[in-house]
């Protein structure tokens, strides 16, 4: 008998971290061994309430527990924000393809991220720095609406900046009194002089509008569409290429993605909507 694809694995919430006014991270421990690759996603169920797709923000190397950061945007995510420590939730997966790390070897990895898009990026970042000698450098260009909206504050404001081989710049749309950094959308901290286009891959994850403009910026720098990796966010239900919800053209985002090169999807209509 095949395993039931629809059955979530019960997982206990062992810690909750308030990251920003709208985003919380949950540290969960699945009751069964659960392995994933960075960039893959899970379907998270609050039993009886609803289910939604999320990308773990922790490193796949941590096989004991998993972190998931959830932004409050609608019905299910609002209810998920009411979950408490000790509560049992369900996860299904992992689904999708994850980041093709082997294609990044020997190159600069240029990561542009914003908002809750930093969740998958954190998982990628932690994976990359575990083997940082495999890459030429890791360049991070992160944005948030306000300084308070940055998630993983301790890391992005602090120790990630100090890692050798990492070049990090941050920006906010709107500063507060203490902000000394750049003000402006994330593309304003992406400078052509910082990139050696022929030897770099770009990784972009964030709100659709940000992904669109960051992609255009990368093209302007001379990146080929096949060098730009996008984590696409579409409406999903099953997570394994059957229910049809997530389709972009012929692709099931849940199965053939969520990570695509811009080359793969650029000719389909309304990919940013």
């Amino acid at each position: 008998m095949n395993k039931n694809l629809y059955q979530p694995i019960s997982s206990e919430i062992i810690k909750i971290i308030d990251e920003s006014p709208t985003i919380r991270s949950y540290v969960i421990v699945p009751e069964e061994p659960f392995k994933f690759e960075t960039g893959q996603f899970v379907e998270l169920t609050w039993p009886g309430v609803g289910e939604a797709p999320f990308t773990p923000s922790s490193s796949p190397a941590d096989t004991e527990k998993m972190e998931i950061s959830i932004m409050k945007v609608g019905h299910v995510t609002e209810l998920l924000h009411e979950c408490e420590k000790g509560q049992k939730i369900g996860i299904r997966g992992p689904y999708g393809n994850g980041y093709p790390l082997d294609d990044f070897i020997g190159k600069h990895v240029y990561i542009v991220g914003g908002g809750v898009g930093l969740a998958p990026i954190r998982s990628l970042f932690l994976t990359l720095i575990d083997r940082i000698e495999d890459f030429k450098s890791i360049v991070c260009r992160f944005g948030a609406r306000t300084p308070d909206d940055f998630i993983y504050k301790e890391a992005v404001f602090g120790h990630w900046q100090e890692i050798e081989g990492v070049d990090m710049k941050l920006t906010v749309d709107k500063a507060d009194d203490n902000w000394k950094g750049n003000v402006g959308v994330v593309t304003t901290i992406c400078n052509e002089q910082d990139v050696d286009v022929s030897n770099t891959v770009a990784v972009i994850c964030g709100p659709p509008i940000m992904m669109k403009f960051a992609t255009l910026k990368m093209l302007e720098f001379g990146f080929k569409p096949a060098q730009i990796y996008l984590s696409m966010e579409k409406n999903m239900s099953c997570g394994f290429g059957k229910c049809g919800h997530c389709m972009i053209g012929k692709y099931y985002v849940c199965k053939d993605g969520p990570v695509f090169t811009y080359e793969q999807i650029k000719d389909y209509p309304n990919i940013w909507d």
Partner: protein
Amino acid sequence: MLGMRHQINRGERVGIVSISKLSVLLNAVAEQIELYTPKKIGNHYTFAKYDSSIETPLHFNNVRAYTPIKDFLFPLSELVAVFSKSVEPNEVKPFAIFGLKDCDLRSIEILDKVFLEEEFQDPFYQRRREKLFIISSDCFDPAESCCCTLFGGRPFAQSGFDLNVSKTSDGFIVEVGSNKGRDFVEKHSQLFTDAPEALLIERDKTRAKTQKQIEQNNSKYELDAPVNKVLENSTDSEVFDIESQKCVECQACTRICPTCHCFYLYDTRQKDYFAKMKMWDSCMRMAYAAVAGGANPRKVLGDRIKHRLMHKFSYFFDRYGIDMCVGCGRCIDADSHGMDIRVVLKKLNEELRTKPKAEVAK
């Protein structure tokens, strides 16, 4: 001894026999397993459980039933998970359906591709599928909406059946299409006789005649190029938006389509457990692809109609090597406002004729 005639798809040896009365065959099936047979409602057929103890009229349906066969394998709504205990698919008892047509068999082939795919097999579908015994039958007197021949189908079963029944002037010809079917015929060999050559010739003539009829009915919808090419060259066409003015978004076309298999999962709270249900959905629904914040790649109705057709004839074909439409015509019958898939495709075809060659990719 059964006459072994030829090989058909799926590599099984077939036999052809004949039987004098349909009820004899069906009673023998019903003695063993649950059997569903066509039941006439108005001008249409649906399926009902067959009971040999009461004198139910047996219909030899001329064409496919109005309701899609997917219902037997992929029900409108079903329980797929319980929290926190795990739920095993219910034991399914073997069951048989009589009266499936070639378009039905091909629709099952399509669903098999999706739900029995190696990597992610749906155990609920699989359980039912394994237990289904298919007794198909030849079509005659096709409906106006029948257009199987446009999409590679025939008005008689080509493959994918256990037994197939053809009506003749002197009893019925029963063709074996699988090991399961052969086992059945061998076990009940006293019911069957060899099929006389004359009846086989008659059967082939009737089949050819029906096929010709459908081809003639649909000759005005013939396309200049394979349907996937017509669509792929028409992605910027306004025909979808124009046609969408006839659509009232009732979603009937996708619900009644035997190959449409969109669904969504939803969670509910029962008295003493939490349940995850799987329920039919429709890509024609406005919010189908909407995400939080209101983004929606197919907000416009014409875009949803285009996606439905592209999925059926281009994307699915790309992935699985067959079209996701069998030309059964159910969507044509279901659309009271007159959208006809054949007409839409033909309009695109006509539009391409007027396009400069350079713009039409091969």
